[in-house]
């Protein structure tokens, strides 16, 4: 019987082309929608690598920032006092200078060319040794930054696991310098010896950009609080509060900071609140997109239903004939659905081959290839029962007509 279905489908290729295209379009639309959904779901599932609760961001506006080394040295001295004041509060567990708080929407990136002439960009975060407790970060190899790292004749660097994999592959990154190249693949050493970066530790992936984003490469380097020629005065700090600290502490912290830097301006924000705003801003367009995609899928579904209906209605006489020749209603319905499944599998096979070109050709490099595989699988699982459902009613209607009347149907 399967051979008969295939023969009928093949011999009616022109009439079936419309159904095939409709199923193919539905499949591709679903694949795109599911890819986006799977991509975001996968991102959401991954650990952030830090804790946003009881974490505050303190942004500093330094009025007389400039190229004058004396001014910079004075600013750095005030910054040291500021960090001491932050750490001195009993409500504060730990604090660190850190550019761009998580969920701030801003990131500092550094980019290097590797020997394969590919540009690798990573989050570049100058911090003090206490930063590991502030986020907190999980060290998986080597050591974290320690006092005195900011005066070494090289720059110790702690990198995230994904960056270690990207640069060193399966090799041990500890103690290895990060060699830089130019766009032509020629070595390009740093102008100063102390600027040469050497990996001292590896931390778990650090997703400062939030749950919905991809996992960025990340690196931590020492923030010098003493030498203005190595580091400028930090303009942002992260403060880890003791659990249960109330929001009222913000006023007292602000007073304390103003007493250290009377001409500086401070803004304190809860990272949890920043996260809520970030999610709201990111989820709204996603929700709108999902609604539009839902309507699109619905429209495609309606179109499919219409095409199937028309196709089955056009076969009323044939259905009458088959019943006259001994087919039961169930056998005729099974035939309609069997042909539909054959056609759908053909369209889905074609769709899978087409859709999997996206990861194979690397057309969307920031999405992991398995996301496309999962999305294609989900689309197949969704579309098959949908198509069967669309075929059931027209099939039922067609067999509801008496064979004698169906044979006279024009």
């Amino acid at each position, binding site marked *: *019987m399967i*051979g*008969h279905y295939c*023969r*009928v489908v093949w*011999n*009616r290729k022109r*009439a079936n082309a419309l159904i095939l295209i409709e199923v193919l379009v539905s499949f591709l639309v679903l694949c795109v929608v599911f890819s986006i959904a799977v991509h975001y779901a996968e991102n959401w599932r991954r650990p952030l690598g830090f804790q946003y609760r009881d974490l505050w961001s303190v942004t500093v506006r330094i009025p007389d920032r400039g190229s004058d080394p004396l001014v910079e040295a004075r600013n750095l001295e005030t910054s040291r006092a500021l960090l001491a004041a932050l750490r001195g509060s009993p409500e504060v567990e730990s604090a660190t200078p850190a550019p761009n708080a998580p969920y701030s929407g801003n990131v500092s990136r550094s980019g290097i060319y590797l020997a394969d002439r590919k540009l690798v960009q990573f989050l570049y975060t100058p911090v003090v040794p206490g930063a590991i407790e502030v986020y907190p970060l999980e060290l998986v190899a080597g050591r974290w930054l320690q006092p005195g790292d900011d005066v070494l004749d090289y720059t110790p660097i702690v990198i995230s696991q994904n960056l270690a994999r990207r640069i060193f592959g399966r090799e041990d990154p500890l103690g290895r310098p990060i060699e830089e190249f130019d766009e032509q693949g020629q070595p390009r050493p740093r102008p100063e010896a102390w600027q040469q970066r050497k990996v001292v530790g590896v931390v778990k992936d650090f997703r400062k950009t939030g749950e919905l984003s991809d996992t960025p490469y990340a690196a931590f380097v020492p923030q010098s609080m003493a030498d203005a020629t190595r580091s400028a005065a930090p303009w942002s700090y992260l403060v880890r509060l003791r659990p249960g600290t109330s929001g009222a502490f913000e006023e007292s912290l602000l007073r304390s900071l103003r007493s250290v830097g009377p001409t500086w301006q401070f803004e304190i924000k809860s990272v949890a609140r920043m996260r809520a705003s970030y999610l709201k801003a990111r989820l709204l367009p996603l929700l709108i997109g999902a609604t539009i995609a839902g309507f699109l899928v619905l429209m495609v579904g309606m179109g499919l239903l219409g095409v199937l209906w028309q196709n089955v209605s056009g076969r009323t*006489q*044939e259905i009458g*004939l*088959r*019943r*006259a*020749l*001994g*087919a*039961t*209603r*169930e*056998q005729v319905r099974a035939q309609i659905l069997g042909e539909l499944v054959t056609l759908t599998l053909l369209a889905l096979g074609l769709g899978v081959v087409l859709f999997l070109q996206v990861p194979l050709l690397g057309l969307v490099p920031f999405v992991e290839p398995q996301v496309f595989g999962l999305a294609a699988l989900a689309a197949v699982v969704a579309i098959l029962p949908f198509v069967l459902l669309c075929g059931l009613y027209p099939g039922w209607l067609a067999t509801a007509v*008496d*064979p*004698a009347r169906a*044979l006279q149907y024009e």
Partner: protein
Amino acid sequence: MNETLVLENRSAPVRTGTAVRLTGVAKVHRTDRIETVALSEVHLEVGEGEFLSVMGPSGSGKSTLLNIVGLLDRPTEGTVEIAGQAMNGLSDRELAPLRNREIGFVFQTFHLIQDLRVRDNVEIPLLYRRLPRGERRALAEAALERVGLSARMGHFPAQLSGGQRQRVAIARAIVGRPRILLADEPTGNLDSRMGDEIIAILEELNREAGTTIVMVTHDARLAERTNRIVRLFDGRQVQ
């Protein structure tokens, strides 16, 4: 059986039993507003191996009668027996295999599936018997050979003449070796020469295979070649 039926052709084969028996059959088509009597008080007995023709003007109920005998339609009143088995009260699931095994249909408009090759068209009744593909193919080829179309098995219906199409339809009707063949104006769409060819095939089937044939026709000349003629007028059996 209604004894007033006339046997106009004395060359009928010897009857060994009753293939079809209709007793007091009536068919009324009802809608919200009108009621149309298609058949009324029809009593008919067709012996096994008989070649019977049904005549009458358009709208006299010939096709309705054929649909009832062919188990495509149910009578409003009366009983239908096929090979001694009562059909009243049987479900669609029970009637379908009976149609498949006991009855073959030949229609005026052939009703061939245009997208299937000749051989695939002839195989259709066998699909519902769950026969192996090889056996289906062999039976279909034998049926086509019998109607003289072995050379056209791989053609599509559109590539055949009207007479050839009707021969394909006959091959499809006999492929399952049914006891009864019902032909609804099988020559209606053919010229007289092709019509004669078709009737010759039906006669041969009746004579050699002993197939019972009930044929609806407008053509008195063809009807005269059958064993017996039943005439209908306004849904009533008049002869």
